[in-house]
């Protein structure tokens, strides 16, 4: 796969069809990957990588590095492609300046899962068939791939690419998922239990803004929480209220636009399951206003800038979600 991608990237660069390539670059360890812009065949030969650790969603990176006077080749996994489609819908990127190649993703490995299992001193991680071999300073360990696959990939919503110019590999399908199970589990708790759960999670927040800055739906020029004139600017949560406020408002601002790519939870240094906030909105939108997947096609009207006269009343919440 990686070789085919490299070959195609070099061809497109050589033909002048594109002048830049956005892809993934390898680093110190097998598991740390950086998004990068490549401009020459040498760079691609040296650094380009596509493997089980390339979880970074390139659509946000592309948004930040877009140039409209030249064409850029970008490789998108299915979930990246959803995010990109949403960005195109919102006119945040210029579709004409992009050459999109869809690439398949068979589930990315979450190294944090391996580390949480107590494994340290990791020297290399290789996957072979359904097995993942971890070679460490303190001995080797083998996992079945599903054990160390990231949560978002285990609950993959789709292996389809809503937007692309060409595909490498076969096009996948929208998947049946259990991604709302965790949300349902929380909904089934008592309010006291839910409150305790979220206090426990959100109190770990250090307000590093990684979730916001990595989020492909968060594309405001200046975030309201950075704007000193907004009255709610905050650099750190000085009170538990501000922890709640930041995460509620952030999740709300991407509600209906969040494609559930899971970057927020991936980047959180404190392992807060932020995707559970976004999924709550997605699940509510599906329940109240009909199934909706952000980024599924260009030009969709997001549910929060839409309505029907027969919409449910807000007291549906007080009635326990039943109309």
């Amino acid at each position, binding site marked *: 796969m990686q070789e085919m991608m490299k070959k195609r990237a070099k061809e497109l660069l050589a033909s002048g069809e594109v002048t830049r390539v956005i892809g993934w670059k390898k680093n110190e360890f097998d598991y740390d990957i950086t998004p990068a812009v490549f401009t020459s065949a040498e760079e691609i030969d040296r650094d380009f990588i596509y493997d089980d650790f390339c979880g970074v969603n390139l659509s946000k990176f592309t948004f930040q590095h877009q140039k409209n006077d030249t064409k850029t080749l970008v490789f998108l996994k299915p979930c990246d492609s959803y995010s990109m489609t949403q960005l195109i819908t919102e006119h945040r990127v210029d579709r004409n300046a992009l050459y999109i190649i869809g690439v398949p993703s068979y589930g990315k490995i979450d190294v944090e899962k391996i580390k949480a299992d107590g494994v340290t001193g990791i020297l290399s991680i290789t996957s072979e068939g359904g097995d993942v071999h971890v070679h460490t300073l303190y001995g080797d360990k083998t996992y079945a791939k599903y054990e160390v696959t990231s949560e978002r990939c285990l609950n993959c919503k789709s292996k389809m690419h809503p937007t692309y110019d060409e595909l490498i590999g076969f096009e996948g399908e929208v998947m049946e998922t259990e991604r709302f199970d965790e949300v349902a589990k929380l909904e089934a708790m008592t*309010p006291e239990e839910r409150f305790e*759960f979220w206090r426990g999670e959100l109190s770990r927040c250090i307000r590093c803004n990684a979730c916001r800055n990595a989020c492909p739906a968060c594309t405001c020029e200046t975030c309201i929480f950075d704007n000193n004139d907004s009255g709610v600017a905050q650099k750190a949560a000085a009170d538990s*209220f501000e922890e*709640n*406020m930041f995460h509620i408002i952030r999740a709300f601002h991407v509600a209906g636009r969040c494609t559930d790519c899971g970057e927020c939870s991936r980047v959180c240094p404190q392992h807060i399951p932020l995707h559970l906030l976004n999924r709550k909105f997605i699940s509510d939108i599906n329940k109240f206003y009909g199934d909706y997947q952000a980024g599924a096609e260009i030009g969709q009207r997001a549910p929060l800038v839409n309505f029907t006269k027969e919409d449910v009343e807000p007291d549906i*919440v*007080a009635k326990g979600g039943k109309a």
Partner: protein
Amino acid sequence: MSMNEFKPKIVAFCCNWCSYAGADLAGTNRLNYPADVKIIRVPCSCRVNPLFILRAFQRGADGVILCGCHPGDCHYTTGNYYARRRMTLLFSMLDYLGIEKERTRVEWVSAAEGAKFATVMNDFVKTVTELGENKRLEDLRCKK
């Protein structure tokens, strides 16, 4: 503080074109509703974004109610339809975070419904009084 002494602080966002006039009518008709309700006039229920609701709680509100024109009667044609979706999702999220869902409410009150305004406020104040002080979505700095 015993239950009887507790007087909740209620913030009511009222649409200029209907509910605010409804509150006025309640006043001219000498209908009683508790003085704990502080009305904030907004040009349309749609003007209220989730941050308004949260900031009201931050500043010490024990309950927040949004009153707008009946769906279909919006002065700006469709504003309250958007507000309806927004508030539904926000309230659901607050409930998801374990914050008492009875502390937030949306009611459609027209300019002619002075009596309804008073009834709604009386009922809401009663509900919030029973719930007691807002503890789960408070900012301690604003309370000391």
